């Protein structure tokens, strides 16, 4: 893969050359976007720095997995990418996070606009207490889409992309809570896709689900990566190995020091031939 070779030698100053070619069938001039660059990113809760010195690239239209033991700041780092940390009081993010070259923490960036470009799926399925249709329509309606036909089209497309359409197409008016846990999570994916994001953040999206639902979510992710950049936090190393193109391993070595990024690289390489001893220990199950 071209991507991995580029990743290993890339410095943060280097131009991003990690994007894949334009999708087949897409409008000719469509720009492939949705790549993040993190430069010396740190996160502090009050006076306690919990993550420090994270440098990495998140390539467009690929799956990046964040792995590491519990409490190593994977989810916190993920929430830096759509500024959901802003919603928790007393959190400071240092360094620079850029989305397609735009510093998302600069004053002129409204987190509300950012979150339309960077969607999120949470650990536990959290559909709104309303119909399936209204759940998926929430984002587009927020963006001002009012026309019925237009909404219908967006909703069908989002549900198809989340591999839920066939199961719910005749029950769109049903309450979302009537769906199973796995269906609810795919509904949440559809809801996030309906805002047409460039990036989809997933925080252990399958950890509350049974194996079959997990499989369906993983299949969905595989389908989606041609359309959006995916960053997924997972506890499950097999899952990271199965679904991701790039893996980042984070570690907090003691409670006295902040978590940091140990190693980031092409998934296949990282799982077979890691550069760092600690990565090797973790993926072979010696800790965590």
């Amino acid at each position: 893969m071209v991507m991995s070779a580029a990743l290993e030698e890339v410095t943060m100053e280097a131009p991003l050359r990690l994007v894949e070619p334009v999708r087949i069938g897409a409008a000719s001039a469509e720009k492939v976007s949705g790549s993040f660059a993190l430069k010396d990113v740190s996160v502090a809760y009050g006076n306690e720095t919990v993550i420090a010195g994270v440098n990495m690239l998140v390539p467009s239209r690929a799956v990046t997995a964040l792995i590491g033991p519990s409490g190593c700041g994977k989810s916190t780092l993920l929430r830096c990418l759509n500024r959901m940390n802003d919603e928790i009081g007393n959190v400071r993010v240092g360094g620079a996070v850029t989305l397609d070259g735009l510093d998302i923490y600069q004053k002129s960036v409204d987190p509300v606009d950012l979150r339309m470009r960077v969607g999120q799926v949470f650990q536990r399925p959290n559909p709104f207490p309303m119909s399936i249709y209204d759940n998926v329509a929430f984002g587009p309606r927020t963006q001002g889409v009012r026309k019925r036909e237009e909404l219908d089209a967006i909703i069908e497309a989002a549900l198809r992309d989340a591999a839920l359409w066939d199961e719910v197409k005749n029950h769109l008016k049903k309450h979302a809570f009537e769906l199973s846990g796995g269906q609810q999570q795919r509904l949440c994916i559809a809801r996030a896709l309906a805002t047409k994001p460039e990036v989809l953040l997933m925080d252990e999206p399958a950890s509350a689900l049974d194996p079959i639902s997990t499989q369906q979510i993983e299949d969905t992710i595989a389908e989606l990566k041609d359309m959006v950049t995916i960053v997924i936090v997972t506890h499950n190393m097999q899952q990271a190995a199965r679904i991701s193109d790039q893996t980042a391993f984070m570690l907090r070595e003691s409670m006295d020091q902040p978590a940091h990024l140990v190693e980031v690289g092409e998934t296949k390489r990282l799982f077979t031939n890691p550069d760092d001893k600690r990565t090797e220990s973790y993926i072979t199950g010696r800790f965590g």
Partner: protein
Amino acid sequence: MSDRNRRARNARTVEAVMKVVTGACVALVVGAAVLILGKIVISGIPGISLEFLFSKPGMGMRAGGIFPIIVGTLMLVTLTAVLVLPLGIMAGIYLAEYAPKNIVTRIVRLSIANMAGVPSIVYGLFGLAVFVLLMQFGKSLLASALTLTCLTLPVIITSTEEALRQIPSDLRQAALALGATRWRAIYKVILPAAAPGIVTGSILGLSRAAGETAPILVTGAAFFLPRLPDSVFSQYMSLPYHLYVLATQVPNVPPEITWGTAFVLVAGVSIVSMIAGAWRSVQRRKVKW
């Protein structure tokens, strides 16, 4: 071994005794409620007729009906609701969703809790001084409704805040992550989910307002008025004050008129509560976490 047996036996005894003691307390409370309601129903029902509900009082309030009193109460409670609900619910939303966690917010919250403990006659005197005299609304529906607004505001604010806090933060996060502003998340997701709790609190607060005597006594309720109020600046008659008048100020009132009036007040409040309760259980069945 025997020591452990004795302890286990003691624990079982305490368990049995406490179950009986706590149960007895509930029985006492329920008994008192049944007694009060039973008396009102038994003594009140004979006085109830269409004529009683839809005619004016006559013969120095010793005969006739209570139509202007019912209308006055409805107008007063409606006006109070119009004033207090937007104000109280908005303030509750601010406290639950926007207020920073700091000392000022804590003081505000504490003040609201204290407001709920102020005796109602003190609200009455406040209303007399501010709304009746200072703002020159005179003794009127408006002055009374504003006074009752102050009285019920803490209940509405607190219950709104509590209802909002019970909504899982997952839902807030989900809405914000979709690019919704705080207000959109509140308006479209949080508020509908919290509506049953907010409605309960509002009904509770307004029921209290409907039954208050002291604050309206000094701000606008009339001893007797031959006509219905024609504007918010009119005086009015009201069920709780009329009840007080019948019970203590007018000699020789037939008991079915006094108890009938009490029955109408209690029945009115109960009917509204029951409608709200029914609506709530329908909502609950739709929304589970």
